[in-house]
């Protein structure tokens, strides 16, 4: 049997994903291995888990190194790879937003040549350049993006907002929402055709589990 290669990232998103896959009837015991192995295989179930950085998961799936990936929509928007995005997994909800000091509320469009600090340079550029037809200077940062407006590095930031607590504690507010984000299941385009007999039942099983949860929640 050919392995079904699934790319996951360590962390909360992966835990929820594993729990979901397990509930869908696939044994994921191997992933609970506390070791630092990056490839975990379950020969019986025919599953191979590839532990990758979240931002790299679309790349692994695009190249076919993984057949399936579990990844946030924010990463998908930033990487813009040609993948099948088959399921919204319904967890990891947050928003991609333009944030800045409250004084800018409603005045964002009046600042010419804004400096935008972000971990999502492509998302930020597309939002301002394509959607709003505004020129911006993108400043790429790797974390603690909220610092940028506070120290005068940028006027605004583009980042994911979950509860908004970090923003509030740093005196920032959401100015505009770019997109709603949640965890997605993505599939390599070739695998979808060449491994259909394995991937299709997998997607369907997880899809059924998601439906069941939705029904439970609405009861």
């Amino acid at each position, binding site marked *: 049997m050919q392995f079904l290669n699934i790319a996951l990232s360590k962390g909360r998103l992966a835990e929820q994903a594993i729990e979901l896959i397990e509930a869908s009837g696939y044994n994921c015991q191997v992933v609970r291995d506390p070791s630092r192995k990056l490839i975990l295989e379950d020969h019986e179930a025919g599953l191979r888990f590839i532990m990758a950085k979240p931002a790299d998961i679309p790349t692994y799936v695009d*190249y*076919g190194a993984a057949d399936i990936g579990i990844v946030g929509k924010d990463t998908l928007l930033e*990487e813009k790879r040609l993948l099948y995005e088959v399921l*919204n997994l319904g967890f990891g909800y947050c928003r991609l937003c333009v944030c800045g000091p409250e004084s800018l509320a409603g005045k964002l469009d009046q600042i010419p040549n804004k400096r935008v600090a972000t971990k999502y340079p492509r998302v930020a550029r597309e939002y301002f350049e394509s959607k709003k037809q505004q020129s911006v200077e993108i400043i790429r940062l790797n974390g603690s993006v909220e610092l940028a407006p506070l120290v005068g590095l940028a006027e605004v930031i583009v980042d994911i907002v979950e509860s908004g607590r970090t923003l509030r504690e740093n005196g920032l507010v959401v100015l505009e929402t770019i997109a709603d984000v949640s965890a997605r299941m993505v599939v*390599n*385009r*070739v695998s979808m055709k*060449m491994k259909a007999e394995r991937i299709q039942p997998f997607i369907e099983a997880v899809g059924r589990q998601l439906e069941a949860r939705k029904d439970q929640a609405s009861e």
Partner: protein
Amino acid sequence: MTQWQFHTPDGVSDLLPEECAEKRRIEQTIRSVFEKRGYFEIETPGLEFFDVYAVGSGAVPQEALFKCIDHQGRILCLRYDGTVPTARVAATLFRDAALPQRFYYVGNMYRYNEFGGGRQRSFSQAGVELIGSSSPEADAEVIATAITTARKTGIEDLQVSIGQVAFFKGILSEWGISGEAARQLPHLIDSKQMVAIEEMADRLQLPKAARAVILKLASSQGSDDDLDTFEQLVRSPVAQQAITNLREVLMILEDYDCRRYVTVDLGMLQSLNYYTGVIFKGFTYNLGFPLFSGGRYDQLLQSFGRDLPATGFSMGISLAMTALQRQGIRSKPQAVPCWICYEKPERSAALKLAEQMREAGSNVICNGLTGDIHSFLARRPDAKVILMQPGGTWQWLQGGDPACNS
């Protein structure tokens, strides 16, 4: 400062003997398949005017082109694909030729990928263009040629998805979807984003049948029954005609004995500005990208002054090499040459012998000895070595057949 003379630029690489031999073998196989079907090879220049790639349905985003400027200040770019230059040639230099025309190319393409991530910026492609015929026979011929090409290079595990973009264009106008929605919807369907598709269907307040069609387009796993279902669900004559056309192409592929490789996927909706009819992509194991892709592009030649229908495909040669390697299919490497070693007085005889052996089909290197023959043998213990002897006789020292000594 980095010393760049030791490096190759991002996205390009050297092909060393083993790979190079494999590549030549594949190219040779491909040429033979194409020529046996009556396609003529053309070689367009590696440099084109930017305008060639900036107009009409073949327009390429400018950031994807490698550009430079000539002495008159005109923008030039490296060849981005094989189809557009071939269309230029067919529409201009062959404008009075009898139709249809059949051309093929094998060559390097150059694409500047912003999000490189290991993707090659220079890669070799081979492809055919069948220009001047809008018949389903032409579509089927090109698809069958693509399948045969892949199989002849050694790739047997092949799946081809076939679609028809006119179907989607027809239903868009039937349901009056235009503007931003018409731009987004094909992308959502093509990447199977079911949730987003449903949201958009709600927003557009699509009728029930329309909803069913777009959801089925995105979710379908490619079965022939799809065509019947779609036929019943849509009214647009353009869409109906697209299905009839696709059925015909499938029927002809049956006669080509290629039908078993092909599955229908009307949800393939890329490059809608470029393609106008039947499109297809070929997949194989252990390769993350389609091995070949192609389709009908009836609007491209207008940009070059002739309104001609056309169809074609291109196949990535390095993709084929990767697939073959990963599937464990190896070709014979280039034959190891044999050495003829000689001392100065025997040079003339050695060079003559070398020519004779080359005529007979061997690869031969002549080596005037500067030191001891034994130290030469020690340096190349695996080489096939002949030593030329005084009086025109010679002797296998290593790796040859001693019985052949003269």
